[in-house]
């Protein structure tokens, strides 16, 4: 007699992880050796999926993000089509093995919210009005997560859209700043975000100097918030340089093969 497959109870209390004492030491160095205004090491690559119309892969610290873009193509189902513009269908999704405790592949409420704000971060950049009644599908897969995945997702998605040849006003790049141990810090990783006091993700169109995503949770004074948003925008500008390199490097490789 086989038991029916029911959910097994987890006893995670017995497997608690040790929490770090401080996030930032006296010299202003963080747990992973970074300074307060330092980004995690970043690697970006474009055109990595043969089937997708456009694709990109990004690593930022321990974050690993893969994005595939399809379209513009006929909107499906029909009722989502807009008469005067294309619609972006965006899905932010985390692989079950991407986090410490295995995550169910079914979309959580967080996944749904993030899918929406990410879509809204990308929309201002895309010339949607050129392709009425079509849809552009953006699929963001987080293969490994360590804090700041919505920002990493946006940065990667913009690369994938550009790789697909979809006309854009500007690239979109995203970065978060937050507060850890009372200090404003750039690009919080998961431990810092969980234990820290605030997180401010920002998405930015660098040439148009426009902010297309802004969220905040935690507790910040108006001064701290100003410092955080400035720091996040600076982080975006640094990531933008890497985005351009990634787009151009594919072409340079072709040239080198002559």
């Amino acid at each position, binding site marked *: 007699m086989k038991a029916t497959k029911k959910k*097994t109870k987890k*006893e995670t209390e*017995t*497997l608690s992880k040790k929490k770090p004492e401080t996030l930032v030491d006296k010299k202003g160095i963080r747990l992973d050796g970074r300074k307060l205004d330092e980004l995690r090491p970043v690697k970006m690559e474009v055109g990595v*999926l043969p089937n997708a119309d456009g694709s990109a892969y990004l690593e930022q610290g321990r974050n690993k993000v893969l994005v595939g873009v*399809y379209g513009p193509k006929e909107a499906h189902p029909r009722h989502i089509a807009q008469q005067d513009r294309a619609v972006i269908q965006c899905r932010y999704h985390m692989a079950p093995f*991407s986090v410490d405790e295995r995550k169910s592949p079914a979309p959580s409420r967080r996944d749904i919210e993030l899918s929406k704000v990410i879509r809204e971060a990308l929309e201002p950049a895309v010339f949607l009005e050129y392709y009425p009644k079509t849809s552009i599908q953006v*699929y963001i897969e987080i*293969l*490994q997560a360590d804090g700041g995945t919505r920002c990493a997702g946006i940065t990667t998605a913009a690369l994938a859209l550009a790789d697909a040849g979809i006309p854009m006003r500007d690239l979109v790049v995203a970065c978060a700043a937050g507060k850890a141990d009372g200090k404003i810090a750039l690009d919080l990783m998961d431990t810092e975000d969980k234990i820290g006091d605030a997180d401010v993700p920002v998405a930015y169109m660098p040439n148009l100097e426009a902010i297309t995503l802004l969220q905040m949770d935690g507790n910040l004074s108006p001064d701290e918030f100003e410092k955080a948003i400035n720091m996040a925008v600076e982080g975006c500008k640094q990531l933008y340089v890497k985005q351009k390199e990634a787009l151009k490097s594919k072409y340079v490789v072709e040239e080198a093969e002559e």
Partner: protein
Amino acid sequence: MTSPIVIRVKKKRIIELLASGKRTDGRGPTDYRDIKIESGVIERAEGSARVLLGKTEVIVGVKISTGTPFPDVPDTGVLTVNAELVPLASPDFEPGPPGEDAVELARVVDRGIRESKAIDLKKLCVESGKLVFVVFVDVYILNHDGNLIDASAIAALAALMNTKMFKYEVVDGEIVKKPGYTPLPMVNYPIAVTFAKIGDKILLDTGLDEEQVMDARLTMTLDKDGNVCAIQKGGGSGYFTKEEILDATKTALEKTEELRKIVVKG
């Protein structure tokens, strides 16, 4: 998964070439495309592997947690296999819960691991009837260019072989971690090979083009001793004759040994 519309002249061409024993990419009927295996690609997972079979790309992540055992097997760890045909992998995959293709894929991979007793699940018992380890195997298809089953089975095996569990001791019925890791206890190494039938020709490792015109497929999973531990016929409304199936079993013996060497050697 929506079925793509097959181009008629493409199907004609594949069948014409097969009549003279040729495949569109020049392979022989039992040749596999280039296989590339990378282990440990997701450091935060307990085990992982990325496999490229031609242009088909699969990542498998293994996560281990604890839970209660099934009542009928109180001293055995739990194995769960799940597969996602994520939409970025193919224009024909749609977002949403696993459809019948994803479920079949997961269950065929699961059967191979379970029936070959690849993992020594008895060693995953902490306290009989109360606490065991649960092994989650999640198959993630990243690019679909045919033969997802064989690619996924290879990736799952490589990921399990890459899996490390923390060392622990039981104190007052609770798990206390000790420093160090121990590999997941593996005792067998199942390999799946999938035969496709197109007209009256039988092929291994179909590319996407070939898969779109096949009449049926037959997957056989063999363990390290050449014993058959799982079989699945699927992939269309065609059929196999008994002779074809028995022939396939012989080819499977040879082929799984070849593939196993690639995976187990690392």
